């Protein structure tokens, strides 16, 4: 059963993003929204942790949340896909279940 994990906290402030990555299963998807969007950027103290997880899971970010924080999509870690709200809906449909890491 593929699960969509939704993360909304910055990985630099809270442990919820790390905890999410420690509990995902192969084939799951992770979507970064709100303050979690800053975790999508390459070359941070968090990026290696996320890249390691990307061997097993697909990773997405809400592009609008990146742009709001002054971060352009060309700075994302390779392999992360930016989606809009319609893409968010698609992800909830494609996965059997969702889990929010608040």
């Amino acid at each position, binding site marked *: 059963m593929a699960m969509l994990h939704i993360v909304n906290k*910055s990985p630099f*402030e809270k442990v919820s993003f790390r905890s999410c990555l420690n509990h995902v299963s192969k084939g799951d998807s992770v979507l970064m929204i709100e*303050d979690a969007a800053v975790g999508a950027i390459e070359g*941070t*103290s968090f990026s290696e942790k996320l890249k390691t997880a990307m061997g097993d899971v697909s990773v997405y970010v809400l592009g609008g*949340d990146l742009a*709001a*924080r*002054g971060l352009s999509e060309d700075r994302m870690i390779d392999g992360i896909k930016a989606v809009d709200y319609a893409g968010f809906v698609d992800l909830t449909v494609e996965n059997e279940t969702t889990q929010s890491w608040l």
Partner: protein
Amino acid sequence: MATKKFMFVNRKAPYGTVYALESLEVVLISAAFEQDVSLAFIDDGVYQITKGQDTTGIGQKNFSNTYKALGDYEIKKLYVSKESLEERGLTQDDLMDLVWEDEDDDWAEKPSIIMVDRSEMAAVMAEQEVTLSF
């Protein structure tokens, strides 16, 4: 009224929570009382002053331009943590060009952003009489 040294410590990214906007509101109020105001941007607070913020995709008001007006309110000491930028893959080039105009120097524009390391930030904090944390 006596002037006191006020510092506003900003540690959260904008838009995800209301802290950044609320801090900015109180900073502007404090300026009206002509206090000696400094701002600190630490941890995720550095995202508050990144350049090129575009909130059209999230349907929230973009308040980043307000930081550019702080110089007009005599708020011209914005201390930014070097380590916090580095941990986030950012440099000073990613921040807005925030300036104030020096009336004693023919209104020359001077930078408001002061890059400091943790020990320098600690020293600035130690000088404050009032510290408000957001």
